[in-house]
Each structure stands twice: as C-alpha cells, then as structure tokens.
C-alpha cells in the first residue's frame, strides 16, 4: 500500500507545488486547505506524512500539530512543517510541538522529496 501524504496549505499554488513534487506514483496525496480540513483528513485518511503550513487563517499549523500530538487516539503521522516563518524561534516552536522536520519557504522540492523519503524509511 502506498504511503499517504497530506498537504495542508491555504495557498493553492503551494499545494499544487507539493503535489507536483511528490506525485510520482509512489504516494497517495491528499490536500487540505486549512487546519480544520487537515485534522479531519488526518482522522479519516491516516496519512503517513503531513506537510503542514504554519500561517493559515483560522487554525494555524502549530494548532493542528499540537492537537494531533495531544490526541493519543490518532495514528501519529510524521509532520514536516513547511513555513515562511523561518526564524530560529519558529523552528524551536515547531520542535517543541513535536514536528519531525522543518522546511522554510521557499523550499527545494527535491529536498522535500528527500525529507519525505527519510521519514518513511523506518516503515519501509
């Protein structure tokens, strides 16, 4: 079964970019346009990896991450924070909340592919 990857970003071009980057047939890709949608999809689709934006209207990426990590019933996906907020403090905030990786926008799609592969490796 192919690993499922959830992309959550309120910006359509970004979602499209992530999809284009990862959509090489190895992964199932689902998209969420905001935090609420992301939580719902995490519950329903049980993605293996979540690529999560931080600055979104409504629930931020950090909110989503915190809720996921706080909810033991959920299968815990690996989370890649993909954000324009690239300060060191943001990086620390992400780590504190249980993010596995942190990528700053703009990002290299190839680096994202590599990151996702690394996160999936132990399961493979």
């Amino acid at each position, binding site marked *: 079964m192919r690993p499922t990857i959830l992309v959550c970003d309120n910006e359509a*071009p*970004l979602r499209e*970019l992530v999809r*284009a980057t990862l959509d090489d047939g190895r992964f199932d890709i689902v998209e969420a*346009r905001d935090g609420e949608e992301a939580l719902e999809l995490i519950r329903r689709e049980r993605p293996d990896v979540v690529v999560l934006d931080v600055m979104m209207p409504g629930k931020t990426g950090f909110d989503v991450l915190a809720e996921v990590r706080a909810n033991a019933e959920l299968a815990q996906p690996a989370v890649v924070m993909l954000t*324009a*907020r690239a300060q060191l403090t943001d990086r620390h905030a992400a780590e504190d909340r249980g993010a596995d990786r942190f990528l700053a926008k*703009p*990002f*290299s799609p190839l680096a994202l592919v590599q990151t996702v592969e690394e996160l999936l490796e132990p399961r493979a």
Partner: protein
Amino acid sequence: VSRRSLRRPRLPRGERFGVTRTVVLIGLVSLLPLALLAYASSRLASDAVREETESRMVATATITSRLMAEELSGLAALVDSYANRPTLVAALGGDTREIGGATRIRYHLDELVNARPGIYTTFVARPDGTLIDIVPATPSIRGKNFSFRDWYRGVLATGGPYVSEAYETQAAGTPLVVAAAAPIRERRVAGQRGKLVGILVAGVSLDHIQGFTEDLAGAQDVKLKITDQRGFLVASSDATPTRLIDRRGDPRVAAALRGRSGVGVFDTTDGRRLSAYAPAPAIGWTVTASVPANAAFAAVSDLRSTVLLIASLVALVLCGGLILLHRALHARREADDEARRQATITQAVLDATVDGLRLVDPEGNTLVANTAMDAMGRDLLKLPSHGPISERILALADRTTDPEGYRAATTAVFADPDHEGRYDYEFADTGRCVHRYTRPVRDTEGGLIGRLFVLREVTAEREAERLKSDLVATVSHELRTPLASILGFAELLVERDPPPETRARYLQTIHGEARRLTTLINDFLDLQRMEEARFNLSIATFDLGELLREQVETYAGQSREHTIELHHSEEPLRVAGDRDRIAQVVANLLSNAIKYSPAGGRVEVAVRQEDRFATVSVKDDGIGIPRDQQGRIFEKFFRVDSSDTREIGGTGLGLALAREIVQAHGGELSFESAVGRGSKFSFTLPVGRQREGRLTSGPYVLVVEDDAVAASLMAEYLAEEGYDVETAATAEAALEIVAEEPPALVCLDMTLGGELDGWQMLARLKEDPATADVPVVVCTAGNGRKQAAALGAANFLTKPFSAARLRAALRGLIPYEGGRVLVVEDEEPVRRLVVETLATEELHVEEAADGEEALAAVGMRPPDAIVLDLMLPKLDGFSVLERLQAHEETRRIPVVVLTAKQLSAEERVLLRAHAVSLLEKNAYTARDLRELIRQALGRMSAPV
C-alpha cells in the same frame, strides 16, 4: 534656560538688610552696657582716687598749719616766758637808765636770741613802743618808736603773747621777719593784771620759716604756701619770698583767712592745681598745699585709659565678632538662597522631564520625586501610598505579567546597595509596559545617599516594536509564499524536465505567482509612500462615469460567474483626481466584491453626486464581513478570516491602499457589511473644476474658440500670465462649463462650430444673472465692436492679436489679477498694517490669525503668496512652513516671513531651506514688502 533667568534673583530690600539690621542691633545692645560699665567703673575709680588724693592734700594742709601754729605759738610762749622773768620785769620796773638795769636787760636779750635757732634778733620796747634795747646791738634805732608795728598793736590788743604779721625791718639789708612778742608786766596784785612795763620781742627770719616749710613740702611732696594773718606770703616751697607779696587775691588764701579750710582744683599761674587750704590755729595764718591737678589725677587718668583700653578692646573684639557673625549669617543666607534657587531649578528640570524620577534614602524614604513620577505612581503603577518603598514596589509583582521575574529583579535591587540595572515589565491588567532603571547615588566622598529610580512608560514603543516585528514577519511570509511556488516549480522544471503540458501548467503558475509578487511589492511600496505622504498624485479632471464603465467592463469580462451592474447615467461626471489611482481603487473594490461573493452573485456599482462630492459605491451580496473583523479590514495584510475565504488570496493590501488613495484625494472610503448579506463599500471624491496638469489658483479664464490651434495658443498666453485656463470649442460645451463654475473672464470667439454662435452665447451669458457679471472679451476676426459693447462685452479684440494686446485687453477686467495673498499674523494691528500695505487693486488679501487658521485657508484654496509671522498661537510659523512643504500643492507657494523674533543660526538655516524671504518687523518699509510680494508672485508666472 536662558542666561537671564539663571541670574541670581534679587532679594527684596527688607530681606537684604534684615541680617545687617539684626547684627547692628545686637552690637548696640551689647556695646551700650559695655560703655556704661566702662564709664561707671572709671568714674568710681577716679572718684576713689580723687577722694584719696584730696584727703591727702587736706591732711598735708592741716598738718602743716598745725605745725606752723605750734612752732610760732611755741616761740611766742618762749618769749612770754622770758617776759615773765622777774629780773627782767624788775629791770624794767626800775630805772632802766641804771647801769645795772640796762645790763640785765641786755643779758636776757642775749639769752633769748640764742634760745632758739631762727631767732636772729631780740629787743625790748617800752609800753609806748619806744625801743629800749636790741640784740644784736643797733644803736641807730634805739629810742625810736615802733608802735606802728603789728607786734605792738597785737600785744596791746590781745594783752598776751602775739605772733605778728611779716614785715620788713628798717635796718638795711635785713631780711623779712615775723615777730613773736609778749608783754612784760609787773607782778599781779589781787587778781588784777600787773602794770605793763615793756614788750619783749623776738624776731624770726622768714628764712627760718621757709626752711621749715620746705622740709614739710619735701616730706609731703607738695607745694606749700604760707601767708600771715594779713594774707601776705611768708613762705613758699617754691622760693623764698624776698619781699612782701599780697596773696589775698588768691581765693584759697581768702577762704583760709576767713577761717575756712577746703580742697579743690584751682586755676593758678602754675596751671590747674589740686589745692587744700587751711587756717593755722591761734596765729591766724593760712596754709595752701597744692599739687598739679594732672599729677594728682594721673592715677585717675591712667586708670581711665586702662579701663577705656580694655573697654575698647572688648568692643573691638565684639565688633569683630559681630562682623564675622554678620558675614557668616549673610553667607549662610546667600547659601540658603542659592540652595533654594538650585532646588527650584532642579525641581523645575526634574518636573520637565518625561521620565519618572525618584530618589529614596537607604531607609526607603523619598528624598526627591518629580511630577512625572507622582503621576506614574498614581495612574500607571497604582502604588500603595504607604509603607517602605521596597515593599510598595514589590507589591506590584502580582499585577505584572511575570510576577516571579519581577520579584526576583526587584529583590535584587534592594539586596545590593550597589545594584545598578534595568528591568522591563508589563502590567497584566492594563497592558502598559514600564522600563525601570535604578542605580545607587553617592556623594563625592562615596557615602551612600540613596537609590535613584527612573521609570519610563514604554507601552507605545513596545507596541510599535511588536507591530514592526509582526509586519516584518508578515511581509516575509507574504513574499516567501509566492517565491516558494516560483522557485519550487522552476526547480521541478529544471530537475524533472516534465512533459510539455505539465511544463505549461508549471510556467503558468510561476507567471501568476511572479505577477502576484510584483503586485504585492508595488502595492506595498505605494502604501508605504502614501503613508509617508511621499506620493505624487497627478490630479486632472476626468469623467468618473467613463472610468466606472471601463472598470465594470473589465471585471465583467473576467468573471462570467458574476453579474456586475453599473447604475449611472451617460452624463459625464467631472471629478478632479489621479485617474489611474482612482481606477485602482475601483478595481480593488470590484475584485473584492467578486472574490467574496459566491458564483452567481451580483455586484452593483452606483455613483451619485451630492453638493461638491461624488460618491461611488460597490455593493455585493456576498459573505459579508464578521462584525469582530470590521475594525481591521483596512489593516495591512489583513484578510477576512472565514472558512469560505481561504482560497481568496490577494495581497491583503488592496483596501489599505484604496483608503490611502481616497484620503489623498480629500475623500473618504467607508463600508457597511453584515455576515451573509454582503458588503457595500463607498468612497467620495470632490467634484471640481480642476484643470489639466497643475493646480494653479490664478483667475480662471474660459477661452471659447473652435480653432484648436488658436485655442491652445491663447491658452498658452494666458497660462503664462498666471491664469487658470479652460478651453471649449463650442458654445454648448462652454455654457456647460460656465454653469459648473462661472469663470472670472470669458474670451469668446464669434464663429463657433456648434448650433449657437458667439453672439448668442454672449447674449445667454448676459441674460443669466449668475453669469451676467462675468466680463467677456470678444475675440474675432470680424467686425461688431459696437454690437459687442451693446451686448455687454467688456472688450473687443480683433484677430490676429499679440500676447501683449491680449494682456492689455484683460487688464483691469479681472479682479485680483495680481494674485491672492494670505496674511498670517496674530496681532490685529500688525495684520491690519500688512493688509493695508498690500491691499491694492491688484492683490486680493486674505487674513488668518493663527497657524491653524492659515492652514485651513490654504487648504480651502491655496493662495499665490503667504506673508507669515513666526510667532503664532496654536501652530507656529515653522510648523506652518513644514506643513506647506509636506504637500505637493502647497510646496511652491512663495512665503515672506515677517518676524520680530531674533532668529538663531539654526532657525535661519531652516528658513533658508524653505526658501522663504525674510523681513524684520521693525525694519521693513511698505515698499520692501510690496517688492517682495511682487517678486514672490513673479515666480508664479513666467517672465514675458
């Protein structure tokens, strides 16, 4: 603070002399008893000395008189004892011519003359005074009668022994003498005195008495003078009298002759002398003892001078002390005054400080606090009003956002006297932030005076920092997001070389995101410039209706899902503004309306004119704006946050920019909205006659001319003259313009392209009361001067004409040809003077009494020149200049600064930077002012 006010304040007269007066009073009060004491003591002492001296003199005089009396009485007694010798009596009782008798007498005389020293002669006289015999023998005088002598008369008068007055003997060369005489009597019978048979006399040389006197005088160290009972000098310790000297004129002698004794200071030929005088008992002589008064009272004057010296020394020391005291008091008062003055200055400086300052002593008592600190303590910190300062400060901990940190930082301050540090804290309840600085304060010797606290409220700064960092984060995010797409897709293109259709899609996205990024950057920079008022609008008159039509068409073309309706008549609606910017505003409102409306939504655009404003509204029936977000929609990067809007995108700057643009045009952008019912955004724009290119405010001239070349030529002429020119090719267009705003003058061609010709237009203008007064200059190639005048034309020009002729024709027709001058001056008389000076027929003068009024007047209609006072209420001249500089429309208005103020170098530089002309109030003439204004206005119109 100016030097003047730092000078020492002059003390009031009363206070200045208070110290002196007090010290002088103390001096008087203490010197007076001192003087009295000195006087009394010297008086007492001198009285004692005088008494002592006087009593010594009295004693001397008395003793001398006694001794003298005893000596002479003793002599008289001796003579008396001889006179009682029976043999002598017998010798005289018998016949003295008997040999034996004479011999016997001689025997007694010889014996008597040797009985005592001093007796230098003895003789016997008969009871009638005839000399019987004398020793030493002097035969020449024997038998002579001496009854005239005092001794004779004395013996007869007293009947007993007698000491005579001094007298000169008749014998040549004999000295002055006194005689002691005694009667020689026969034996007494039955109680009867015996018969006088003779008189025995012993003569004593005055030399003898003199010697005796000198001895006494020497012993007593005084001068003695002795007189006989007549008052003739018999002896003097000075010198032996060589002849009889009458001393009765001497008051001392006179008094003693009268039997009195006494003492006193007398003026004598020898000067003032202390003298005692006394009568000698029994013999009736007088004795005067004297010493020089100054010698007698030498002790007194010595004593007095000693007392005086001591008193003077004491007085001197006292005065010195008082002077020192005075100085000390004065110095202290001055020091007090100085200290008070310094304290006042310090307090004033402290109170003028925005930061709160408090100095507390080591016990926690406030030594100094300024008003800012008082106010902070009351309003910001809400400090408890009692208790040690450390406790009061610590009590705030629970109200701060970080009680632990606050407590730790504050405890550290009080734990270490040398602690110096800064600490920032925020109140949880009010959200206000405070910056605290504290350090110990020591005196010059290093002794701890206390601790200084400086508080500054930094709420605004923190807020600004927060906003700034938020903005930076947001901008960063907004820039990175499209960049991420661009770079990401670019990388995919490079790395993966996708098939053509995928590549096209990638490129499309890259293009779209790059455009979005460009827009974002442009909008952001525009907004920044707008906010900083560095934005140049190119204002022109345009048809707002046309603009709306264009925009609506564009958006209708883009979004086929929405219905966009424009409610506007075809009539042109002329507004003044920057067309492109207004188009941007409309586009933004339209795109928002579409974005926030569901497919099939309906957007209505309407415009209406009210008074001098046109209002454009864009209404949608979309999702609306939640009430809690309505306050923020003009914030940068704010996007209405709702699950329906997550896809909407955009820069988040559109509304902020739109509002800035509208406000820069003098309008307002507002909205009404309700969730689910849609939003309506409206903005206003001033309607006006604002012509192409520039915002001159010269008189407005309408040129009605169908020949475009001629029209533009005239327009150019007139513009050069400083007129604001509008052209119309037809009478119809011209009348429309005139109806909108009547011009100051109309240049009217007679042959026009429209239905109406110039004559008809002229008639219309003159018929309409609103335009009847507008002067019309007929410009024609044809004839009709008389007809034109009859119809009310003001002047008639025959084509072709030169610029000079045109100018000449217009002169005098337009009021305020020279321009409008705004006089800004707060003092009524000065303003009147300036206005009178400028109020010629060429100039229209307006007035403003303060800076705000001036700016309001400028805002209404920018004048051609401003006469500006610098010292103005509300807003001073410098601020007015600054505001004028800040706006494109007012920047070039020439300003003549009129000031009485002494300008600092800095101010001069400032004024030079504003390129103003300067006139000093008390040094300019009316001509100077007119000249400057003329020059200033000259700048408005190019030289011909």
